């Protein structure tokens, strides 16, 4: 088991390296630079700025400098938010985004899993159609439509919850963003659980359980282990899509997370900020995939014996 984990871990590092390299050079290929304002700066000022940020050096030297700093855990200063280093920006934003993402994922699992199981047990019945219709709605209605509608209904008409803002992470402020983030994930997880459950319910060991006359709850528990596999392997992509969704949700609800940095960084050619976001997000996705692999191996002996 330990060798399995170590082997998985060893493959993650070159992946991260490739991601860093790829995005570093892609970013630099894009025309324009971080100091291109509407009114061009004086040549001397520009030259000094470029020297301070070491942009005057050849690209491969910059790359090596960045890589070296990254290995020491130094993300460098932000080019756009002049008074902040990337580490400071992340120290503020990351906990916020992580809390939103983790809560949304948890909510999605807690609601989506049982819904999918219910649909699988009532395949082609009314409950099944209802769940699948809702799931399709969850996938098709974009979150930037859901968010304003929720704001209008719960924030303004009913006035139960605040329309936006973070307010130091007060619970009331997090409800609408988390629900908005979770809805598409609930839909996906419900669909996946249903499909996997239907497959598992046809298996021989479940038929044996049925033949022994066990209750539905017990059968669901046994089938759940088999049905959980595809859902667990979805957690990696889910983490990535939650981060994507957070771009919209953080913009609409005015939440100070890292999602916004994606867009702002790329548009303003804030090289270090973009690189920092890429690295952090990639590490997240890789760690998630690693956890998924380990969980998979724990649940399915075929994987670790292979």
């Amino acid at each position, binding site marked *: 088991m330990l060798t399995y984990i170590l082997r998985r871990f060893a493959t993650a590092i070159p992946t991260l390296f490739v991601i860093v390299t790829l995005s570093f050079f892609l970013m630099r290929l894009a025309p324009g630079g971080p100091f291109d304002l509407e009114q061009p700066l004086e040549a001397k000022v520009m030259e000094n700025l470029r020297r301070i940020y070491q942009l005057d050096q050849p690209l491969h030297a910059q790359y090596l400098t960045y890589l070296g700093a990254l290995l020491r855990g130094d993300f460098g200063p932000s080019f756009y938010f002049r008074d902040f280093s990337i580490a400071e920006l992340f120290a503020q934003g990351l906990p916020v985004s992580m809390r939103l993402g983790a809560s949304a994922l948890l909510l999605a699992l807690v609601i989506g899993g049982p819904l999918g199981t219910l649909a699988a047990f009532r395949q082609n019945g009314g409950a099944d159609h209802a769940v699948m219709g809702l799931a399709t709605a969850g996938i098709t209605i974009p979150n*930037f439509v859901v968010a304003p509608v929720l704001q209008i209904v719960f924030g303004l008409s009913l006035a139960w919850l605040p329309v936006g803002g973070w307010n130091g992470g007060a619970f009331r402020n997090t409800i609408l963003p988390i629900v908005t983030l979770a809805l598409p994930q609930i839909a996906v997880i419900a669909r996946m659980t249903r499909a996997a459950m239907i497959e598992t319910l046809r298996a021989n060991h479940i038929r044996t359980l049925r033949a022994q006359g066990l209750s539905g709850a017990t059968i669901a528990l046994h089938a759940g282990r088999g049905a959980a596999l595809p859902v667990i392997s979805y957690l990696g992509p889910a983490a990535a899509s939650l981060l994507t969704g957070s771009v919209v949700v953080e913009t609409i609800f005015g939440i100070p997370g890292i999602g916004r940095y994606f867009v702002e960084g790329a548009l303003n050619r804030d090289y270090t900020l973009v690189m920092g976001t890429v690295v952090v997000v*990639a590490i997240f996705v890789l760690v998630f995939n690693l956890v998924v692999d380990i969980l998979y191996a724990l649940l399915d002996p075929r994987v670790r014996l292979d």
Partner: protein
Amino acid sequence: MSEVVPLPAPPAARSLWQDARLRLLRNRAAVASLVVLALMTLACIFGPWFTGHPYDRVYQDYVRVPASLSAYPKAEALPAAIQRIASRIRATSSEVVVDAAEVRLVLTAQRPIDQRLLVYFDRSDQFGTPRIMASEQEGRRLALAVPIKRQHFLFGTDANGRDLLTRTLVAGRVSLAIGLLATGVALVIGVAYGATAGYLGGRIDMVMMRIVDVLYSLPFIFFVILLVVFFGRNFILMFLAVGAIEWLDMARIVRGQTLSIKRQEYVLAAEALGVSTGGILKRHVIPNTLGPVIVYVTLLVPKVILLESFLSFLGLGVQEPMTSWGVLISDGARAIQATPWMLAFPAAFLVTTLFALNFLGDGLRDALDPRDR
């Protein structure tokens, strides 16, 4: 001499595709989705020519008017509009009589009215060229008959006074085109890549799939943003960028299919009979990967449309005066309280299309999945 007994005709065999079509046609949700999609496509392609408004025509007098089945201008809005124009002509209006096609009114002023100023009626979106019925008191008192320009804004207008129905339909053209074209790009790259990796196998397969894994863990939205920022906000390059991202799943699916198909008995038989590699690929491998690929394509189109609207929402998508459903929705979402119709109609169109595509994809999956038989 024995009688020749003709063999009974063999029962008509159904191919996979005939069977799939039958199963699809039996699925009511899928058929309804097909009809909806066909109608939506026709409406978006031909509709903008029949709405009576160019998609980029600005009606200054009809900014943010709500959706309405009856024609604009509304009767209750006419007196105020006439008063406004009269004051620009430096006259006062009186004896305003509104009937179906025209307004009769009398303009009075201290000094003789400059008849050239009557062009203000023309310039407004609500009236046609006024006819002077009578001129009294040396031109200080003009009796006018002004024809009313009746216009329909079935979906209302946007913040610039452009007809929302026309814009929604034109936006549909863009969104559907991006969806189809980007999916086409993803299809070509994904099928070629996946089939190559799967068929060659071994080390090449491992390296190629490792590359896909790496691209997979790249935060894809950042990748799209980079491509869009890099290539400029260009319609054609955008679908290329989106297609270049979305081929990863396709490559995995096709590779998996190819791997299993290549070990089937009929492929072995074809190899034993000496059929060339290209022949096997064309006759046996690619047609058999098609089922899951078609299903994935139907599910990819809505994904791409959604991705395009997401980019448009961030301001990275199609640029004005061109528009897409994403652009319209993000405009609507920003002004949801004052002008809810600006969100409701484009969102309804988008969601309907996505729903139909999803149901069609599910129906196709059920129809093509041989395990359910």
